[in-house]
């Protein structure tokens, strides 16, 4: 590690130079090429290329078990990389882990704070570990507690915290040294809607203050709402990458969404829509409607006329840009969430 000293110093001075000249747009926060992780014969992460540009929110979208967390852990130096390479702000993750760890903050899926300590003690601990003086660690900790609405709970042990409070404290603990790149692993999984929207606001604030964020999520609306660019991961492979609208544009021009007046008519209606559009409709989770991708927006009229001719009554119909749900379905051939069998069973 010692031989790395001059290089690291050189690069930090050149970083300051770059800052003075006006930071170049498009600096790479994360550059991964051919990233691979093997668990036995299972390729948990399989040959993934990724680029995260400084200052953006990059979303990694995929269902449970797609390899999102594994990928994040490799980038955060928590798991060894089995194949390919990754750089964080130019530092090689495999060989310059210590430098990388100074630039990142990691908030995992499960709160990584100490159950035995109070909120205040936790933040002090992590501040001290990162080289802050005792006093500085305490004042930054108190600021963060206030910012995350945790002041009243500051002296309670974490075991008495609610899920939302733990998440907030966990994120606060990742922000003590204001890391340049923050990894958030499913930041809102398990949060109630209020805490969820608070977390979204916090994430947007962080980016506004200059941080770069790479987050994983299995919620399509979350990726859509937060991320400037999204990589879709399925079974360890990257199946698509782009802005939300680019991804939507990848599949057809529009989507017809139909709500049936009688839930019992849905199966018949789906069969008709499939026949007319030659696409596989997705049955909505409550089962009384469906959506189908259209290669031509005029097909919407064909479907609706066919429904009328078969005396299948609708309560609502819209034509819109496809949702990320449909994007996911089109990219991977299966739906992003569990009720897949229902969809397949009702398709002709």
């Amino acid at each position, binding site marked *: 590690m010692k031989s790395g000293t001059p290089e690291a110093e050189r690069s930090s001075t*050149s970083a300051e130079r770059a800052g003075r000249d006006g930071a170049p747009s498009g600096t790479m926060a994360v550059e991964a090429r051919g990233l691979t992780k093997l668990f036995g014969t299972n390729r948990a992460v399989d040959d993934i290329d990724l680029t995260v540009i400084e200052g953006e929110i990059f979303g990694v979208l995929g269902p449970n078990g797609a390899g999102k967390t594994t990928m994040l852990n490799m980038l955060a130096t928590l*798991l060894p990389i089995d194949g390919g390479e990754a750089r964080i702000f*130019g530092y090689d993750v495999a060989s310059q882990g*210590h430098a990388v760890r100074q630039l990142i903050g990691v908030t995992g899926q499960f709160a990584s704070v100490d159950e035995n300590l109070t909120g205040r003690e936790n933040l002090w601990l992590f501040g001290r570990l990162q080289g802050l003086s005792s006093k500085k660690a305490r004042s930054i900790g108190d600021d963060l507690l206030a910012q995350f609405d945790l002041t009243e709970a500051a002296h309670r042990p974490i075991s008495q915290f609610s899920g939302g409070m733990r998440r907030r404290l966990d994120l606060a603990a990742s922000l003590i040294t204001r*890391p340049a790149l923050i990894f958030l692993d499913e930041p809102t999984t398990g949060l109630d809607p209020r805490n969820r929207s608070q977390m979204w606001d916090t994430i947007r604030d962080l980016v506004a203050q200059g941080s770069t964020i790479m987050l994983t999520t299995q919620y399509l609306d979350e990726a859509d709402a937060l991320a400037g660019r999204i990589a879709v991961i399925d079974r360890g492979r990257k199946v698509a990458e782009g802005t939300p609208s680019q991804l939507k544009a990848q599949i057809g021009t529009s989507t017809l969404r139909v709500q049936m007046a009688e839930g019992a008519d849905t199966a018949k209606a789906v069969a008709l829509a499939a026949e007319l559009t030659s696409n596989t409709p997705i049955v909505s989770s409550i089962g009384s409607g469906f959506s189908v991708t259209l290669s031509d927006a005029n097909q919407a009229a064909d479907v609706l006329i066919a429904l009328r001719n078969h005396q299948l009554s609708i309560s609502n119909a819209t034509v819109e840009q496809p949702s990320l749900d449909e994007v996911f379905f089109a990219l991977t051939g299966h739906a992003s969430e569990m009720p897949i069998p229902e969809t397949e069973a009702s398709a002709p």
Partner: protein
Amino acid sequence: MTASVINPTAIARPVARTVKASVSIRDALSQITTLAWRALIKMSRNPEQLVDVTFMPILFTVMFGLMFGGAVSGSTAHYLPTLIPGIIAMTTITACVAAGIQLREDMDKGVFDRFRSLPIARIAPLAGPMMADLARYAIAAFVALTVGIIMGYRPGGGVLGVLAGVVLAVITGWSIAWIFLWIGTRARSAGAVQGMSMMIMFPLAFLSNAFVPVDSLPGWLQVVTRVNPVSHVISALRDLMNDGALTAQVGWALLGCATVAAIFIPLAVRSYSRRV
């Protein structure tokens, strides 16, 4: 290292920062102390974790003193100078086992993931609790000693001899604990650590000269007990506490501890660093 390419444009805009290539010794010591503080807080909030260094030595001293005293030395009072150093060694070694179990429990919790994601010395999350555990070994030694004195033990080595004995016991506990720490990093669960540690702890503590004179043992067992570093520690403790004498046994004991530490510190640190 050949000149690896480092992106010159990089680093952090939120706060301009310098990136250090490695942890300085001073930073590492501060991190270890901070994590020792965490372990002490944990200890003070879970006092039941101190049972093995408080009630155990009381129980063992009273039990063995009354049971074996007559048989081994003719009377309990005559047995105490043999027994108390043995109990001190045994309870410190028993107390070591907890180091591995607690490390395993800690590693299974999320907070260890955070430690591993921080730019801190790799050894700090191991060494911090190890530093805090010194207090446990000292407590174990003092409790055994106090019970012994109540039962009539009068150490001939005086205050200095006794203190030297306690220091040796603490050093022994710290060195032997690395064995169990290593097991803690290898085993799959805290329960497995417990089971494997017991299999090492019992022979280490009992196949020694702790409770009976070595001469009374069958020949092959005499060889085993003489090789066991714990026997040397106990002999050294007896020399220090009963006679106030700094004998060769003290040297052998320290050498044994150093050897155990030299083998198991690298093993534990390496296995810990690789742990997923």
